């Protein structure tokens, strides 16, 4: 109990001290996860719309695959990217392993199925009717699809929030492909693992709290946008 309390104290000290090392870790965490989510959204939403608007029967197999990948363990995702990027791997020449880019790629792999899958579900519920309406008003297929995406923004935002929560809290993949290098690829979650292993539990729980607070702030922000889209 005292340890937890000390941890909370430490967390506030950490936050208010604006320690440059901590800031750097926080900044990198955000940079990696936000980039990954933006890319995953660009990939996942149109894919979800495409699959969600197809008649239920055809994309059943693809949907199942996507649902399966929604639950892919981060370490497995990380391992796949590691093997692709490693010196002996097919993309080894790019020299991306142990860089933030590698971490972004791994997180895109984790977040895209979630955003695709959840958008798909949201779009499938009302999408076909919306497309018909849009088409009857003279929209071409592109505009009709875009209208569906706009009309389904509630569930799509939900998908993005879920995806973001997953990657910002994820440790397995970034540890493997980033390597937790101090000052370069160390993010909040890998720092927490490290401090736990070092036996610095106060610092670890402090970092954990910082992560939670950050997630809260960002989710509140996204939630407000989502609500804004719901009613005046």
């Amino acid at each position: 109990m005292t340890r937890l309390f000390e941890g909370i104290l430490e967390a506030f000290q950490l936050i208010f001290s604006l320690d440059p090392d901590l800031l750097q870790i926080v900044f990198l965490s955000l940079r990696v996860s936000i980039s990954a989510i933006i890319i995953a959204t660009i990939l996942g939403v149109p894919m979800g719309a495409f699959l969600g608007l197809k008649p239920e029967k055809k994309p059943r197999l693809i949907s199942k695959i996507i649902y399966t990948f929604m639950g892919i363990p981060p370490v497995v995702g990380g391992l796949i990217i590691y093997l692709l990027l490693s010196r002996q791997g097919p993309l080894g020449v790019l020299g991306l392993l142990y860089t933030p880019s590698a971490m972004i790629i791994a997180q895109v792999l984790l977040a895209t199925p979630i955003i695709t899958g959840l958008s798909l579900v949201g779009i499938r519920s009302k999408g076909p009717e919306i497309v018909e309406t849009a088409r009857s008003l003279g929209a071409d297929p592109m505009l009709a699809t875009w209208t569906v995406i706009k009309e389904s923004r509630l569930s799509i935002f939900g998908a993005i929030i879920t995806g973001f929560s997953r990657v910002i809290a994820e440790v397995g993949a970034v540890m493997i492909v980033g390597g937790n290098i101090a000052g370069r690829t160390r993010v909040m979650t890998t720092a927490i693992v490290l401090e736990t292993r070092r036996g610095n539990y106060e610092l670890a729980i402090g970092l954990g709290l910082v992560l939670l607070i950050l997630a809260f702030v960002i989710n509140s922000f996204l939630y407000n946008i989502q609500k804004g889209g719901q009613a005046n």
Partner: protein
Amino acid sequence: MSLTKNLNPLLLVCLILALSMSLVAGGCAGEPAPEPEEEAVEEEVEEVEEVPEEELIDDSITLATTTSTYDSGLLDFLNPIFTEETGLEVEIISQGTGAALETGKRGDADVLLVHDRVSELELVEEGYFVDRYDVMYNDFIFVGPEEDQAGLKNVDKALDGLNMITDSESTFVSRGDDSGTHRKEEHLWEDAGVDPTGEDWYLSIGQGMGDTLNMTDELLGYTLTDRGTYVAMRDNLDLVIVLEGDPVLFNQYGVMAVNPNEHPHVKYEYVLMYIEFLMSGEGQELINSYQVNNETLFSPGYGLE
């Protein structure tokens, strides 16, 4: 328990063993013929099986140990034999030395097998642990790419090696996790008069030895590793040993019990059985007989100091 009584005659045996080992301490690699020893082990095991079957204990103890010990596979070899003899299961928590010591201090483990002699002795002094013994030792080595761009193969002294890495600004991957290996590395840098933290070529990654070796391999860099983990992983690595044998690279492992006066719930009685097992002639021989890829990884205790 009559640990000291039992150990006194053992001490002699171990000292003799240790003397013979110190002759080969530098090399360590693959000397003792393993065949006859393994036979001896089997005999002993059979012997034990016959006698105390009714005495088997249905319980377990928790051992906090370092990743390097665990990764080497030694415990997977030793513990089943102990379990067969006593019935006691040994549950292993594998952490960095710093975390393992912390786990022990909090009473979350019953017994520790770690390698940071200075800290261990301090903590015994402070009353956290009792019955500490030098159970075995191995040595640290520098590994790097075959090309050896920094030229470590040409020197024998660890400190010279570190200076060469510094001068050539070759990538050096550090555990950076407060493990025994990491602490050793920090002491060596200190002795070499170099502060590498923050340098571009110095990567502190806060991970276990296996991960560190993998990254070193990927980046064609150098690192300091215990011989055990390196040998166990060598098949998957392109890294080669570039510097070894400097006496400053020896690594003493200690076993110690969590002080039952601090944490009454620890299974002190059973822990003593485990320590006795490790320090017995049988245990020490088992340690010496353990090989990976035809190399002996650990030498029996009392090897140094």
